[in-house]
């Protein structure tokens, strides 16, 4: 279940990098920055949920 998440996040990262370069090349610097920040926030939301799941499973495993 988690393995596709790695590919998903890597794909988002590559996509955001490409978009950033394209927008930067065409002179829209502020939109390029916006796409990077939005991509980062989206990925951060996913990662935060996964970290929460990890902590929950550690809590149940080690009987906190």
């Amino acid at each position: 279940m988690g393995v596709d998440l790695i590919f998903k996040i890597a794909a988002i990262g590559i996509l955001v990098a490409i978009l950033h370069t394209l927008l930067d090349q065409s002179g829209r610097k502020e939109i390029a920055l916006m796409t990077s920040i939005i991509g980062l926030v989206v990925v951060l939301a996913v990662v935060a949920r996964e970290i929460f799941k990890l902590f929950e499973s550690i809590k149940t495993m080690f009987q906190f």
Partner: protein
Amino acid sequence: MEIFQIVGLGLISTILIVVLKAQKPEMAMQVGIITGIVIFMLLAGKLSAVISLFYDYMSRADIDTSYIATLLKIIGIAYVAEFGAEICKDAGESAIASKIELAGKAIIIVIAVPIFASLLDLIIDLIP
């Protein structure tokens, strides 16, 4: 064999991180976090079987299970602190990493105090 899965997963995610690091280092870090979580999740089922076996033998040998609970808690804290500290260190923030490690050590000492106190009580009882 699970080890081939885990090694393959680690290699693939390392390649992805190396590709991403040049363009977007923050995304590379997130891929690293997810990889760590996925590998732990693959191991969690097997480890919890070992832990439940441990509990079983503890209850059969009539040993107070609060000690083993404290021990497990310490292992969990050590793992979480290590996980966080390694991610911070990878991202170049070794100062925050060492603070996380310090916090882990402090919390482990606080949790271990009851065991230490019971050991000291035993020693004091033995002294005539």
